[in-house]
Each structure stands twice: as structure tokens, then as C-alpha cells.
């Protein structure tokens, strides 16, 4: 048995450490550890709830809008504020474009190098690459000349001796299976996607003033619409947005999705690797009318799947969400055997790990800053795969069409979805659907404005004097990486208690009191190869298939008088 450590896991958001035990080329045991704590929930205590979106937004700058919108939803829920339909549509456009952009960046810049060997691209035949590209897509950058230029650039880059971000990659690893031409095509699109992402995300700049971290507002959006003014959302803004949506969709349809299917076809064995936890949760997303509590109005449905049973979708009940700290560096008043609902959540950090610098955490009962959320006492996977499965099993026709098409083209059945490859493919399925959906929301917003409804904000309960003495509420949202929930309690105009349960907390959760592993750990222990422990490429594939977002995941917010306890270093 060999102990293997991968720390830092790169090409993710934040700080993640993976430890495994390798036996005979397979992974026998795994530990996922988050090694950063920031304590943002404690910081919210006593502050104006209308400010909470900005604080929680800074939990993460990659999925930069999801906490902000969820926080607004929670505060609006507590205070009984209804967001006007146009404000809701703007939020959909901002959040939808975020997810589309985030997924494409994930595929090319965070995940692709697990499957694509940059060095192998040097031996590709540009003419054959051009043929391959033409056979897959009408995307115009497909000439032999174009690919020869890209190849030349890569060659000179490699020959310069300064490899920059490509230094020490696992190039030449036997697990890389793409032919040189596919590698070259993917490298070209890696570079194109760098430019594409900064163009399309400007939808945020128009509605929120900047990206990352665009501005939001409890009660709606601050960007007023007036077609007759130079300084507001006007016809020029609309035409810019329309252009971005068009370019977003074209890149998704003609580059990302064909590339994903092409790469997947060379790695079909990964459709039976890395499944892990068999339970899936989606809180549903994208209300048509701004009313996210109206579950019938959600584009992606809400629900729970247990034990991979696609014939039954259970209703979601947030009272069943509870968190353990059995393996986490926190204390609960009731001890390590209990789990707490977010309304009663406690965040008292208590570090008991080894004194740094350390070599291994796997010998310790507690090994991470992540808590362990459970639904009905079961670990759950959240994210694009969970959303796609809940939608598929619920009979969501758009999802079924794209999923069935992809499964057919790859020649695999629905069981292939429960895997590392399934996770990566589900992300693509959702991006295809959302890129199209952006057009619908844009058209709906234009129709509203045309009919004279330009209201983006509801100020009825803006003034704290209109608030009840005490109130509590929650907000749910499907972030790029999965189900997100914020729970807020307000008293005398200030935040009394705030808790978040975040996608990467679900997925990166450690062992609970029942000894059950979280999704990262379980996936690494599910039929998982590790051919060369000194070059753990396979670990990166499965971990990256979840798209980790560690700053989000570390459970951080507890406002109720929890003094930060002195930490004892053992």
C-alpha cells in the first residue's frame, strides 16, 4: 500500500488536498481535505441584511454571482419581498451567462489538460486536424493554416525552455489517449476560449457594473431601464447583450459541445469509473417570473434521487438538510455524533490536526475545514450531473433530448452517467440548454419592456422601519457547481444568524458519524485506477469532474454569538 498526497490540487478554485492509499494500481481509500478557513459567517453578525449579498459574494470570485443572488433570495424571503418580473429575468440572464461561461472555462482551462496532452499536439498533422475539425463542426477557424499556426506557437513555446503554466505537466502519461490531431484541435480551442469568456461575461458588466463581483440588490436589480436615456439600460445595452448571447451560444454549439463529445469518445472507460455516492440532489433553478419559490416556474426541476433510482424523484424538504462535524475541525456543543440543521448551525473552529509542516492527515480522525452536509442522513452529490439526473428522471424533455442524443452518439446507456465522464458530459448538456435558454429570457425581457414594464426593483420593504422585529428566511439556488442554500435570521434590523450550505461542501464533505464518505472520496474509491502514484493524473480527472470550489465549500458563516474559540495545535 502506498500513501499518495496531491496538495495543492491545481486548476480549481481554492485550496484542496487529496490523500489516497494505492494498492495494485487502484485507489483503496481516500481523504478530501479543505485547507483554508475564513470565517465569513461570523463576520455577518449584526450587519445590515441588505449588505449580506456583497459579503457572501466574496466567498467566491469564480462563481461570482451565485452567493449574491442566493443571499438576496434569503433576505427577500425573510422580509416578504417579491422581485418584479423584469428584475427576475435580468437575474436569470446574469446567472445563466455565469453558468455557461463557468462551464466552458472549466472544460478548457481547468479540466482539459487532464485529457489533452499539449506536447502531443506538436506531432499532429495540421491538414488532418483541419479535416477532423470540419467533420465535427461548422466553426470557421478550421483551416490547416490556422492549426499550423497554433502548432507553431506551441512548438516555439516548448522550445523556448520556459514552459510557464505547462511546466511539469504529466505529458506523455500512458493515460492520455487522444490522437495528436485531437490534441492540437483542443489546444487551439483552449486559446480561443480564453478570448470568448471575457467577451460574453460582459452581460454582468451591463447589468452589474463589473465582472467579477457584479452588483446586486435586495428587491431586484439596480440597473434601471430607460430606452430614452444615455446612462441606463437602453437599446444599445440590449443590442450588446443580444450579441453576447449569440456568440455564447455559437461557441457552445460549435466548439465546446462537439469537442466534449469528441474527447469523450476516446475515454469511454471513464464511464464506469468514479461514480461514488449514488444519491443526487437538485434544488431547481431559473424561475420564469422571478418567483423562485414557485417550483412550477423553475426551468430545471427540484428533487432528490436515492440509490441511482431514476424511476423515482423524491420531493426536496430543506428540513432534512443537516451537517456533521465528525471529521471536521469544529466543535458542536452536542458532540461529534450529532448533525444540525442550518437554523441551529454552529461554527466553532477547533483545529486538532498536526502542526505544520505536515506530511499526512489520513491518520487523524479530523482532517478538514469542510463540514459534512447530509440529506435525510445520506451523503448527496450535487452539481450538473445531479441536475441532469433529476431533470431526466422527472421527464424534462429538453434534458432528455440532449442526454439521449449524447448517449446515442457515444454508444452507451444511461448507467454511464454515474461516472467521472458522466459528470463532465452532464455539464455540457446543461450548457447547451442554458445557452439556448438565454435567448428565451432575453426575448421575454424585451417583450416586457416593449409592453411598458420596465420595473426592476421593488422598494416596498426597503426601509428597515417596515420590517418585523424578527424574521427568518432561506434562499436556494442551483449554482454552476450545485445546490446552494442560505438561511438568514434577522432581528431588530440586523443579521442575527446566517448559514450557508454550499455545493462543494456537499461534494467535498468528509466522513460523517456513520462513517459514510462524501462524494469526492467515494468517487475516488469507486473502481478507480492510479497507475503511477508519482504522477496522479487519474485523481485529477475525477476530482476536476466535480469542478471543486473550495472557498465556497468551507462552511463559514455562523453569527449567533459564537465566539471564535482558541485553537489548540496538537
Amino acid at each position, binding site marked *: 500500500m502506498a500513501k499518495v*498526497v496531491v*496538495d495543492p*490540487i*491545481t*486548476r*480549481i478554485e*481554492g*485550496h484542496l*488536498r487529496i490523500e489516497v492509499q494505492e494498492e495494485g494500481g487502484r485507489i483503496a481509500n481516500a481523504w478530501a481535505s479543505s485547507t483554508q*478557513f*475564513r470565517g*465569513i459567517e*461570523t*463576520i455577518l453578525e449584526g*450587519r*445590515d441584511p441588505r*449588505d449580506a449579498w*456583497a*459579503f457572501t459574494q*466574496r466567498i467566491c*470570485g*469564480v462563481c461570482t454571482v451565485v452567493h449574491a443572488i442566493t443571499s438576496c433570495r434569503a433576505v427577500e424571503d425573510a422580509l416578504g419581498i417579491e422581485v418584479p418580473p423584469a428584475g427576475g429575468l435580468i437575474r436569470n440572464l446574469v446567472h445563466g451567462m455565469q453558468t455557461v461561461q463557468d462551464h466552458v472555462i472549466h472544460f478548457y*482551462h481547468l479540466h482539459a489538460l487532464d485529457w489533452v496532452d499539449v506536447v502531443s499536439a506538436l506531432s499532429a498533422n495540421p491538414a488532418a486536424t483541419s479535416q477532423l475539425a470540419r467533420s465535427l463542426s461548422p466553426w470557421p477557424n478550421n483551416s490547416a493554416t490556422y492549426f499550423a499556426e497554433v502548432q*507553431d*506557437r506551441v512548438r*516555439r*513555446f516548448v*522550445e*523556448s525552455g520556459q514552459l*510557464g503554466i505547462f*511546466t*511539469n505537466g*504529466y505529458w506523455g502519461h500512458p493515460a492520455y489517449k487522444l490522437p495528436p490531431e485531437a490534441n492540437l484541435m483542443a489546444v487551439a480551442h483552449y486559446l480561443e476560449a480564453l*478570448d470568448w469568456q471575457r*467577451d460574453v461575461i*460582459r452581460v454582468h*458588466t*451591463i447589468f*452589474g*457594473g*463589473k*465582472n*467579477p*463581483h457584479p452588483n446586486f*440588490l435586495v428587491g431586484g436589480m*439596480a*440597473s*434601471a431601464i*430607460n430606452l430614452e*436615456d444615455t*446612462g441606463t439600460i437602453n437599446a444599445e445595452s440590449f443590442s450588446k447583450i443580444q450579441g453576447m448571447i449569440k456568440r455564447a451560444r455559437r461557441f457552445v454549439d460549435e466548439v465546446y459541445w462537439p469537442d466534449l463529445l469528441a474527447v469523450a469518445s476516446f475515454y469511454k472507460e471513464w464511464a464506469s469509473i468514479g461514480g461514488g455516492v449514488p444519491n443526487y440532489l437538485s434544488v431547481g433553478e431559473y424561475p420564469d417570473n422571478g418567483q423562485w419559490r414557485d417550483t412550477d416556474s423553475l426551468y430545471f426541476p427540484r428533487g432528490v434521487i436515492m440509490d441511482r433510482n431514476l424511476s423515482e424523484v423524491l420531493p426536496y424538504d430543506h428540513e432534512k438538510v443537516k451537517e456533521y462535524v465528525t471529521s471536521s475541525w469544529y466543535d458542536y456543543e452536542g458532540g461529534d455524533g450529532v448533525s444540525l440543521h442550518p437554523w441551529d448551525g454552529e461554527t466553532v*473552529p477547533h*483545529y486538532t490536526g498536526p502542526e*505544520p509542516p505536515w506530511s499526512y492527515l489520513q491518520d487523524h480522525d479530523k482532517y478538514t*475545514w469542510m463540514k459534512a452536509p447530509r440529506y435525510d442522513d445520506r451523503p448527496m452529490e450535487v452539481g450538473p450531473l445531479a441536475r441532469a439526473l433529476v431533470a431526466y428522471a422527472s421527464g424534462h424533455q429538453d434534458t432528455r433530448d440532449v442526454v439521449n442524443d449524447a448517449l446515442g452518439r457515444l454508444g452507451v446507456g444511461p448507467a454511464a452517467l454515474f461516472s467521472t465522464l458522466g459528470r463532465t458530459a452532464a455539464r455540457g448538456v446543461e450548457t447547451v440548454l442554458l445557452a439556448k435558454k438565454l435567448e428565451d429570457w432575453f426575448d421575454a425581457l424585451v417583450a416586457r419592456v416593449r409592453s411598458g414594464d420596465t420595473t426592476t426593483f421593488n*422598494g416596498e420593504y426597503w426601509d428597515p422601519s417596515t420590517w418585523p422585529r424578527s424574521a427568518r428566511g432561506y434562499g436556494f439556488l442551483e449554482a454552476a457547481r450545485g445546490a446552494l442554500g442560505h438561511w438568514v435570521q434577522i432581528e431588530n434590523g440586523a443579521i442575527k444568524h446566517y448559514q450557508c450550505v454550499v455545493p462543494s461542501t456537499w461534494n467535498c464533505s468528509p466522513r460523517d458519524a456513520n462513517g459514510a464518505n462524501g462524494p469526492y472520496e467515494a468517487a475516488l474509491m469507486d473502481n478507480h485506477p492510479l497507475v503511477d502514484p*508519482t504522477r496522479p493524473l487519474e485523481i485529477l480527472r475525477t476530482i476536476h469532474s466535480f469542478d471543486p470550489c473550495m472557498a465556497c465549500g468551507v462552511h463559514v458563516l455562523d453569527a449567533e454569538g459564537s465566539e*471564535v474559540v482558541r*485553537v489548540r*495545535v496538537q
Partner: protein
Amino acid sequence: MYFPSTHAWSRQETLGEHMERRGVSRRDFLQFCGEICVMLGISQALTPRVAEALQNVRRPSVIWLQLQECTGCVESVLRTADPTIGDLVLDLVSLDYQHTLMAAAGDAAEAALHASMEENHGGYILLVTGSVPLEENGIYLTIGGRTGLEIIREAAEGAAAVIAIGACAHFGSVQSARPNPTGAVGISEIVTDKPVVNIAGCPPIGDVVTATVVHYLTFGRLPELDGDGRPLFAYGARIHDQCPRRAHFDAGQYVEEFDDEGARKAWCLYQVGCKGPATFSPCPIFQWNDHTDWPIGAGHPCIGCTERHFWDTMTPFYKRLPDVAGFGVERNADLFGAAAAIGAVAGVAAHAAATGVHRARQKKAGIPLPVVPDVGGGAPAPSKPSGEEESNG
């Protein structure tokens, strides 16, 4: 559309040789240098000198540490405005260690870091995003089993220049807000034996980061900084003084509630909490995401994110700043400089006062201010009756 460079910059050649091999015309290169001059706020007459300096630089190594943070600053740099400039800047340096983008992970990543630090000792540029948690010997952040504190100390030791990017590296940002549970501090608290440039903002505009690196490469020194370590070329002007909505402030035309009549006419956001009068930032000038827009332009008040401890000093965000009166703004803008030392804006008082004094001197000398009509030999515009001032204060 992306036009890939066919010529990576090799270690042996100067930028001038590199550009020539890339087929960049002299004219395009000079235009790029001219744009840099504009961004850095130096005379365009210096373009030939900038070009000469840039032409002779060699590709330096850059190490980018990500500590206690949210990765928003990395994302911001990925969005740098002009693809040509972005392409050039990506080519300008050898980015040897950068968690979000690098292919290697684990031991292989750490080996790349240490190889670069050894090979380029004393010569690499160190970029840092994120704060350093000091409580409990730094165990709130570890990478590869080592604390953030140990990692930054080691990396800063051999750095030629240290550039702290974003509010976390500047002063600790959101995690350092009261009660600062992890004892988060900015980089300048840790690195004290060499200057630390603070590219302030949560996040900062990516172009300010690239312009600062270009400044260092071009002139062989870091840009001039203000009292808080921020480059003057970006943070030398107050938002309020550069704001396109300033005329509405001067005219007493305010947004009283979001989405009201004033909001739909893009009036001043002061009454709904705008912190522009207390914030030094390039937002209104550089704007965001390829000059698309900026926060006030999109209808939300400035939250003051380039100022130290803004999470405590600028909150509640929707409460208006005290004592920035409406009518008769010239008088009040000057008064602001003297009176700003009160509570919320204490951190920037010195800087604001300097602006006020500067403006007062200009007036005394009879130099017409850009915002005041040149009436009767440069005399300032007559102030409004005091009653109106009070009613709008």
C-alpha cells in the same frame, strides 16, 4: 477572434527581437506603447522612450501565490481588456506558478515553484492574491502542508518586486472584517523589507495589474505610490471627481430610491449610499471588462472597495456618507477635504484633504477648474444660497 502568436518569446531574445520575429510592425508596437503611456498617465511624448525600454527587456519569471482568497482577482486579470495587450502581457512574462491555470498539481507543482525561485533568485516578480491568516500560527491556510505565512515569507525573500493584487492582499478584505476570526492581514504586514505595491479593489480591474507589471518592466522600477501603497497612475483620483454623474450631484439631482425617476435618468447615487466621494479608484476612467461599463454606470452605488477596511468603514453600504453636501459643490468639495476625517472615511482623509488643498490652490491662483465655467477671468462660479445647501445636505 483570437489570432495566436506564432512565435513564443524565448529566453535568449529581447522583446524587440521577439516582436520582429512575430511580425508585429513598428507602427503597431509604437501604438501599443502609446496606449501604455495613456494608461500610466505619462506624456505620450515619451512613447519612443517607452518603446526603446520595452524593446530591450527580457522575459522575466513571474510567480503568483494564491493565499486566503476567493480567486476573483485571478478571474479579473483573465478579463484584461484589450486582447492585443492581454496577448502581449501573457507573452511578456513566463508565468511559472499559478494555481488556477497550471497543468501540474501536488509535488510537481511545488517543484515548479521551487525551481523557478532558485533559478531566478533575486529577479522574479512575485504576484500575490489573498491574505495571510496569523491566528494560531497560521493553520487557517495551508498548501502542501505548509502555512501561508511560511510560503509568502519564502517567496518574498528572493523576489525583485512584490505586487499585492486585490483587497485581500491589500489589507485582508472580507475575512479581516470585524471580528477578523482568522487574524487575516495584507501582504505589506508580512513583507516589510521591500516595497509592496497594492493593486487595491475587490477585485481590482485586471488592466491595472498588467499595466503595473508593464511599468516595472519598462522603467525598471515600480510606479509611484500613494500613502497606502497604491499606484498613483490608477488610484490618484477620487471617483467623485471623475464621475460622469457628478453634474447631477452638483445640480442636486439624486436617486432617492432605486428604480425611481432619478434612477431612470442616471442621476447621482449619493443619497442611496454611494461611496464615490471617499474612494480613490480608476473605475470611472478605465472602466470594466473592455470599457463596457462600471458599477455607478450600471446604477449601483460605489461600495468603496479600493479603500482599506471598506467592509467596516463603508458599511452599511446603502447609508449615505455624512457631510457631503449637495448644492454649491465646489465649496463643499473643498470642505470635504477638511471635514472628511470623521468616522466613515477616516482612512482616506489625508488623501482627500490633499485633493481639497490642491483644488483650493488652483482656485486662488485663478486657474479655471474644468468643471467651472470660465466666467470673468477664471473666478469660481457663484455659490448657491446657503439655505438650499442645507436643505439638500
